[in-house]
């Protein structure tokens, strides 16, 4: 098991390197200019100086190798240093990936925003699972029943109505008309778990984005669960189990559900890119200072190092969740061998 994880992790490295090259190549063709937001009266010579100071005029391969060095050598060293309070090599003057617009290390900014993205995504994910699995299981067990039809309809709606539409409608109804929830996310709020008010404030501001996202997640998941359950319910072993006189509950929950979860877990992993995409839009609508919002802002400002690093971070997260799913899959399905 341990060896399998190590091997999968090692395999992820070349994948990520190729991805970084693809991202880099695409961005290098970008005609964007970090000085385009400056007033028109700033003369060209000054713009040129700014571009020069940002290292914009280097050739492609030079820029890529530099970035790779920063990303895979300097930044990890920096993380080690800051965790263990050490100083490896020239830690004082070590170059880092610097955002063009804020002139701050890109990874620091990402690190600052990662919790918000993971928090909203994570809660939405958990809620999604909590809603989806029971709905999927019951829908499948009572296929074509009223519950199934209604459930199918609701999940179809959740799956088909784009996140940006539900988000807008939610803001209009709950913030503007009813005034129940704030329309933007107070990013500086620090949750004090001992104070109910503080926790409630956090719940209040998360409720809309989380609902919108988990609705979407739940819809897709319960579709998968239902399909997978249906497949298993028709298997011979179910018939055998029933004919052995096992109680129906046991048949469904122990045998069918367990087997049905195997593909669902894998499909959850395949959904991860979609969930991140949904998060980009949700963050944009609800003004959550997560990674998605940062990406849109950075694209707008032609902040190439930031876009590169962020896109790469998304790739890392996706690869990581795929890995988690694979491992989980193995744990759930004893037939899979790791060697």
């Amino acid at each position, binding site marked *: 098991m341990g060896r399998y994880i190590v091997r999968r992790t090692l395999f992820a490295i070349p*994948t990520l390197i190729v991805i970084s090259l693809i991202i880099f190549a695409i961005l290098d063709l970008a005609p964007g200019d970090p000085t385009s937001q400056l007033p028109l009266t700033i003369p060209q010579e000054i713009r040129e100086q700014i571009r020069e100071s940002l290292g914009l005029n280097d050739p492609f391969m030079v820029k890529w190798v530099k970035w790779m060095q920063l990303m895979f050598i300097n930044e990890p060293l920096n993380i080690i240093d800051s965790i263990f309070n050490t100083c490896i090599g020239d830690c004082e003057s070590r170059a880092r990936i610097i955002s063009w617009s804020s002139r701050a290390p890109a990874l620091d900014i990402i690190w600052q925003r990662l919790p918000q993205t993971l928090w909203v995504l994570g809660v939405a994910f958990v809620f999604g699972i909590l809603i989806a699995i029971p709905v999927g299981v019951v829908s499948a067990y009572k296929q074509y029943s009223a519950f199934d039809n209604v459930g199918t309809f609701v999940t179809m709606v959740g799956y088909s109505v784009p996140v940006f539409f539900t988000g807008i409608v939610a803001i209009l109804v709950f913030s503007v008309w009813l005034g129940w929830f704030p329309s933007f996310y107070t990013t500086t709020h620090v949750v004090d778990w001992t104070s109910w008010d503080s926790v409630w404030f956090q719940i209040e501001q998360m409720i809309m984005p989380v609902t919108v996202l988990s609705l979407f997640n739940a819809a897709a998941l319960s579709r998968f669960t239902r399909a997978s359950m249906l497949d298993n319910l028709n298997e011979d072993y179910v018939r055998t189990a029933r004919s052995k006189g096992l109680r129906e509950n046991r048949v469904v929950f122990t045998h069918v559900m367990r087997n049905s979860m195997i593909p669902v877990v894998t499909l959850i992993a395949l959904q991860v890119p979609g969930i991140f995409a949904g998060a980009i*839009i949700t963050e944009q609508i609800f003004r959550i200072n997560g990674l998605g919002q940062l990406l849109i802002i950075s694209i707008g400002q032609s902040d190439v190092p930031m876009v590169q690093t962020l896109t790469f971070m998304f790739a890392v997260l996706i690869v990581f969740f795929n890995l988690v799913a694979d491992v989980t899959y193995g744990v759930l399905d004893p037939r899979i061998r790791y060697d």
Partner: protein
Amino acid sequence: MATIQERVEEQAGREPVDGEKHRSLRQDVWRQFKKHKGALVGLVLLGLIVFATIFGPIIYGVDPYEIDTSATNAPPSVDHPLGTDNLGRDVLARTLIGGRISLAVGFAAMLFGLFLGTGIGIVSGFFRKLDGPLMRITDLFLALPILPLLLVIIMLFRDSLARAFGEELGIFLLVVFIIGVTSWMQTARVVRGDVLGLKEEEFVLAANSIGTRKRKIITRHILPNTLSPVMVSAALGVAVAIITESALSFLGLGFPASFPTWGRLLFDGNDYLQLSPLRAIVPGVMISLTVMSVNYIGDGLRDALDPKLRSK
């Protein structure tokens, strides 16, 4: 990673064994499909939507681009059944014309993605040597952060393509190409799994042993038998493509303002949600309805094409 989906679909191509009367597969599928009420309603609805977007603008006859600054943000009336936008353009006419593009993008991107996915799936399932590399590429594409890349690519290439092919066609081609290129992976995996199973079937082995050429085996024996997963992928592909296009337009990076699609109309109408809510709600509902009917059809197809369900 053999998913249950793959495994089920490996079996989907097999002929029903216990059918006593001879029924054609098509009749069989249709009989089962009809049982799925949602799919049937979806089919009718999609038909209506397609009809409305193709012939609607001709029948309705109002110019969707005509500016009337004397009737801006008008509520629904006899002249304008769904009201007008901030330039006095008719919302109904714009929704009808916008649907053409959204649907065209949806179907074109689906066909492109399907073509790629099926091709790669068959090649990688059939030719052992290519299997490894192709599946690694598939994994790579699955690990790509699609939406961020889409945003960047569209920003980059929109204008050069617009210049080469004209504003509308250029962006259409770009959006279709990009959605297609980034949505073939699931199809490829499913088809590959299917082909791997089919390769071991007696009829393929038989064809092989009598020296049938590879191309013929693929087109005659393999391809028709992968049809069912491909059809399901196709249905879902349309839905994904329509949503992706509108998401891009919603982030302001899809079609330009002068060129209405449902996504773009929703994006433009978003700011006017309180003043003239229909402007955003109508295209939003149209996107949702289309995607929903397509998903229902996909659902029905999946059920209908599953031999185990069909024999019930």
